[in-house]
């Protein structure tokens, strides 16, 4: 761990200032501190945002506004979340362990780094860690790497469960710029695909601070979160599906589907959703949805199993959500 300075501002303005000068925000630290110990990340200054009073949760315009430093445990336990956004509560509880969820926060969870083992290993090449050095995962061990949205420079996955549910719920992210100006970013616009610059993972600029996540009123009452993993608890997803559906007269009126364990960001495919909309549920329809979703999939050798797995799980999730 490289020596670093630590500041804990009580005002957002001083937080912005510290971050503009190269500081990195830390909240729960469940991912950042690990990466610092391994010197995968080596910030000069940590700006602790835990005293900025960002841990509220409130009802706004029929939806929810979730503070950036609210812990995953508290968010999962909130009665409004459990009642109106069960897909989110389940996704949260499917992630990490109780101890980690007690520390991990909403904003930090969104910005957690990939679990690609080569990213964690400073003795191997990684374009995310050292731009231009190459990708050791390609040609290596690729059982849990991306099958969609990857590039020849990076095949790492986004590891979050929570973000998959938020993606299905059409969440937006409230950000405050270094000058204090607020703006709102739709979740898909927060994340960037790796392309030739896998080290640039989000559209946030230095000093930008996530202050809250906004959820609109849920678009559907049928919500499912299903995660497939190597053990019953405390394992990153081989695949996860967050589904929010609304049925009308036996047909699918609206479908939002987000996927984890498939891509460098929580994945959503409007074509799949359009295919389902206004249709009567059937095995054939769900199988078609899986084919459309994976039409452009290009799995590395170790992750080829994800294609049949995804088709089966998607079918099961849609069956459950439409029954």
């Amino acid at each position: 761990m490289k020596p670093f300075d630590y500041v804990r501002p009580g005002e957002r303005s001083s937080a912005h200032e510290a971050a503009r000068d190269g500081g990195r925000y830390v909240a729960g630290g469940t991912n950042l501190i690990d990466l610092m110990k391994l010197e995968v990340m080596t910030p000069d200054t940590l700006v602790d945002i835990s005293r900025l009073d960002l841990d509220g949760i409130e009802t706004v315009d029929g939806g929810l506004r979730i503070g950036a430093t609210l812990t995953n445990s508290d968010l999962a336990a909130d009665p409004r979340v459990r009642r109106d956004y069960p897909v989110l509560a389940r996704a949260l509880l499917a992630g990490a362990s109780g101890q980690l969820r007690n520390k991990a926060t909403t904003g930090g969870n969104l910005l957690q780094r990939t679990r690609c083992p080569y990213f964690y290993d400073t003795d191997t090449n990684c374009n995310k860690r050292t731009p231009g050095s190459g990708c050791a995962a390609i040609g290596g061990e690729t059982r849990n790497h991306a099958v969609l949205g990857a590039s020849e420079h990076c095949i790492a996955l986004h590891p979050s469960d929570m973000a998959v549910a938020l993606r299905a719920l059409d969440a937006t992210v409230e950000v405050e710029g270094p000058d204090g100006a607020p703006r709102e970013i739709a979740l898909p616009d927060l994340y960037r695909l790796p392309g030739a610059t896998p080290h640039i993972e989000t559209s946030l600029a230095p000093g930008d601070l996530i202050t809250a996540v906004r959820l609109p009123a849920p678009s559907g009452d049928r919500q499912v979160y299903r995660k497939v993993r190597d053990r019953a608890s405390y394992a990153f997803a081989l695949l996860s599906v967050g589904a929010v559906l609304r049925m009308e007269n036996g047909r699918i009126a609206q479908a939002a589907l987000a996927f984890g364990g498939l891509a460098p960001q929580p994945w959503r495919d409007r074509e799949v959703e359009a295919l389902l909309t206004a249709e009567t549920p059937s095995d054939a329809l769900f199988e078609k949805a899986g084919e459309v979703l994976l039409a452009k999939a290009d799995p590395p050798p170790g992750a080829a199993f994800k294609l049949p797995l995804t088709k089966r799980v998607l079918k099961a999730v849609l069956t459950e959500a439409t029954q």
Partner: protein
Amino acid sequence: MTLDLKLDAPDEANRADDLVQGVLGHENERPDGLSKAIGAATYAAEPRPDGLLHGFLVRAPGIGAVSCSNANSVREMEGVRLVLRDPRMIRNAAQGAANEAPVQGVDRAEYVGQPVALVVADSFEQARHAAQALEVEVETDDAPVDPEAVTAEKPDGRQTAQGDLDAARRDAAHVLDRTYTTSSMVSAAMEPHAATAEWDGTRLVLRGSLQMLKYNRNELADSLGIAPENVRILAPYVGGGFGSKLGISAECVAAALAAIELGRPIRVVQHRRQVFEMNTRRSETRQRIRLAADRQGRLTALEHEALVSNLPDETFAEPVLQGSHFAYAAPNRALRMHVARIHRPAAGSVRAPGEAVGVTAFEVAMDELAVATGIDPVELRLRNIPDKDPEAGIPFSSHRLKAALSEGARRFGWADRPSPPRQRREGEWWIGTGMAAAFRVNAIMEAQARILLTGDRAVVETDMTDIGTGSYAIFQQIAAELLGLPLERVKVRLGDTELPPGSGSGGSFGAASTGTAVWMAGMDLRRQIARALACDEADLTLKDGTIIRGNTRRSLAEAFDGTVLTGDGHVQPGDAQQKVRQATFGAHFAEVAVSDVTGEIRMRRMHGSFAAGRILNPRTARSQCHGGMIWGIGMALTEAVTHDRRDGHMVNRDFAEYHLPVNADVPPLDVHFIEERDPWAGPLQAKGIGELGICGAGAAILNAVHHACGARLRDFPATPDRVLAALV
């Protein structure tokens, strides 16, 4: 005078059942439990001697010649005291009972992850940061890392054959030819390998996390080039070992060298990622098993061929075939061991080396034979129990497999099981049950112990370790039982090379070996007491600190008036192992659920019935069996080291990605002990229990998976991707 015992003949006296204190064989709590729970027990990294400095090991990032060009500038970093690259540093942990230095040197890396330097600084953080700043250059060699890509050695002593296999197969009603693979696995003890070394100019005192101190002292002295008398090792508490701490590991030698160089106490703790690489792993295996059976399912031919790997100059080869030598009768048999020399991190003993993977694969093959013959899996095993050692022809010292199978089946409710697979479903989940037999060789090792008796208080002393197994508890019980003392009057001192050398902890032999030495020491004291009272030891009744003879009672304290009596015990293996085949036996049963959608497997329940001689303390013994069964879950379902195909390095070397079973993976575990008194096991009649629970446990699970959903998994662990491929 030491009371010696050499195990050459059976001991039918069965004295342990005649003693009256009533503590041996009971569910006593661990005397060390409270201090561990409240954090008062000090482990290797916890003492803080004055002037303590901190060392951090540095790994090689490749295979080949090693250099560190910026060592001088790292030496100038804040707080840094030393950048050590000493030819005496060791390449990987010593193998169990090596008793001499393992391979040494830092100029060449034979595997990725090899320790090649130690950086010492004032604080742990400074040492780690400087270690990360040290640039290690490796002239990368094109070294083979895939066991399947090299021509394997076929060591002469490890190929056996009897009878005519071809003829047996030709004449058989059923033949089976299957290949199974198991992955590299690691011990993954909770406490990382750690050492705190102090040097006074002549003598080294090392607090370590080690299993076998009398060997470790010689290994360390030999590595350093100093006399063993000048090395003292302390390891009173060890947070798990599972084989990875049998021999000294890199931090011991590195800490000692730095302490000698700097004249200051040095602490070196392996980072969890280093624990994976620098200590011995369990080799991956490929096992081809060929069986032939008659119409009744009796084996006529048995072949077991195993491919394992290790570094070029390591002598250890995972003894996969160990259980197959004696598990089942078959007149025609061949066992063949092949060793691939590759440059993955060194392989060595990991809990139940040999049977853990060998019995597990074999017991899946037996299940396949049961399915092929239409014979119930329990019945198939019963029909193949040998009446003597099938190779050597010598009798078994005791053989309780039949009882374990029958009693286990009854307790598990096996009789209700529908025989064909895919009969039970709950929603998307297939439900099934499976079983497997458990086999493990039993060994006794030389051990010494001493008991000091002062009035009605006793202290047991030996350098034996307690690696979480319960040594403190059972030695206290043995001494208390023999001397007729309440438990709290007996203290146990362990883990110090100044004390009489015990067996060390390993190979399941610790309790029986050092326990017997404690027994002999206690018996020595009983004889001294009898002599003082001019009676026969056998006529002596000792209970609650009182000597009872006929109608007279006298307190121990009064009789000896503060004199310290010293009892010395010594046990060593004799001819017994040539005269009889001795082993422990058991039966595993498991119920699983398999998702038809995802291939995920969830455990529902497990039962194990085990016969391992006298059970000294059911609480600690059961805990050992629970541990073994949970290891079986890991082996069957989740645990695998992934080696990078290009340079063999361990890709998933942390607890987030190396998937040990966690609480949510472990179902209710039920353990039953089969009564057994094995006279060939010495006066205690106890045998090893520490490893039996893992042997075959994974097979019961994988056989249950087949019964549930019809998918036969032959590559372990059965992760969802593999199950799905077998389901579709």
